[in-house]
């Protein structure tokens, strides 16, 4: 799975410190690890958002506040959000394990305090993932996302950590073979 260059969608706005147990309550992990199944319950734990997942159109964009995805290390948090049909998560800042998990899955996330503050629910967004530019078509604004280090961009581009590890293993085998 490679990243699209441009993503378009409607914004769904969430607050600060949305934790992984709100994103996908632990109980759902017991029944299924299927992305689509988890997606049906995404954000169930956020008060007032109990039926959120059924309202998402594929490609919509999630916008969170600071420390988005804090709490547990369960990878089902970004998996559930992707399963709900969200194409990209933008936040003021991300909690570190959520951040790692998303990058490792090859799932695009962008950090932009400016965008997180200005965007309102329902705004139509157009995001250039390569340039890190977020255009708000509803408001006519434009925001810049923070650039990630090259290694993280490479991981995102190649589809995450699993393909990267496979490549590493191949290289190590090749090296061992030439030495042997």
């Amino acid at each position: 799975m490679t990243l699209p260059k441009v993503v378009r969608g409607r914004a769904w706005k969430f607050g600060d410190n949305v934790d992984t147990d709100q994103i996908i309550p632990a109980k759902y992990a017991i029944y299924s690890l299927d992305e689509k199944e988890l997606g049906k319950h995404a954000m169930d734990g956020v008060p007032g958002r109990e039926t959120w997942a059924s309202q998402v159109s594929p490609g919509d964009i999630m916008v969170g506040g600071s420390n988005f995805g804090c709490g547990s290390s369960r990878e089902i948090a970004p998996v559930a959000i992707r399963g709900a049909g969200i194409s990209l998560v933008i936040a003021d800042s991300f909690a570190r394990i959520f951040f790692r998990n998303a990058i490792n899955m090859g799932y695009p996330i962008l950090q932009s305090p400016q965008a997180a503050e200005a965007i309102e629910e329902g705004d139509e967004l157009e995001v250039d993932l390569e340039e890190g530019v977020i255009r708000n078509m509803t408001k006519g604004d434009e925001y810049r996302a923070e650039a990630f280090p090259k290694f993280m961009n490479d991981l995102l581009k190649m589809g995450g950590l699993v393909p990267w590890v496979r490549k590493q293993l191949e290289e190590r085998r090749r090296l061992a073979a030439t030495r042997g």
Partner: protein
Amino acid sequence: MAPMGMTMTEKILARGAGRESVRPGDLLLAKVDFAMGHDLTIPPGRLTREFSRDMGIKWYFEVGQGGICHTVLPENGLVLPGELVVGADSHSCTYGALNNFATGIGSTDLACVLALGELWFRVPETLKFVYHNRLSEWVEAKDLILYVIGQIGVDGARSKAMEHTGEALRYIDMEARLTMTNMAIEAGAKNGIMEFDEVTKEYLEGRAKRPYKPVTSDPDAEYEKVFEFDASKVELGVAKPMSPDNYAPLSEVAGTRLDQVFIGSCTNSRITDLRRAAAVLENRKVAPGIRLIITPSSHQVAIQAEKEGLIRTFLAAGAAWTTATCGACLGGHMGVLGEGEVCLSTTNRNFPGRMGHPKAQVYLSNPAVAAASAVTGVITHPREVLAKMPVGIA
């Protein structure tokens, strides 16, 4: 130019990456010394059992033999000073009390470690926390860390290292130190770490499964910020609903009516925690209309509690004593809260829905407060139930 001094965290990451020195912000591929996964983050059951056997993984713990990872690893001497440790669980930062770099990772991360023995890391900035003087009577390490998180917020140490130091720590035993580093993640930290001292050395005697080499921070190490606290001024407290940084002194919430009290989790259910709870509950009864659930954090803790007669005390008081496991803490099983229920819990996290219904209310406290509150049915200072914590238990 002489190389800049490094913090403990930087030194461990530098060694793992095979480099002379590292700076905050550096991205590294580093060798991992010990890695852990559990049945919510690796495939549970036969697949993992057979994988462990086929790969010669020695430390595989079945239910009834292990317990909660963050108690099992330290008590078996598997996570040691100077080491780089990762765990597919956010509370893997717990191990840092033993002078190592330990951090929580995801499942894909763990797969990478299993395949390569290495993982990518960003070197964190370090925040230093200095605790002067000693904690007052009744005030525990749990109260101190709840207070600190209350001061800096749930994102106050986001992606950074929390280095704990100072006189107060000298009087805090290893189990209570593990409670403090356990909650580093509740301030958003990458890791919590402590210095190696006599307490560490003593704890590891007869326990450490490998030789180890402690690390110290250089005198000229750079800290992003230094926080200083007078530990003697920290009051017994709780984190109020619905965030671990919602600290309040106990006096502010005393009298709050409860439905459930839970003593358990990787934060506060080691043997010393259970001893304090038992001292409060001895010859007393759980208040009518309250369910008290006590979950030891490991099978070894359960065996020790049995030997010391603590289980008899709990059962006589009318508590439910469960197998050693994660459960009520994450709304998994055995104590899931219903709508509108109020719980006092010795756990680490009280975000909405963490222990069950999103409209349940969770207060976090130390085990003595939890036990006293189970006796009265409302949030209670333990001295109202017990004149003094017996010597050797406090």
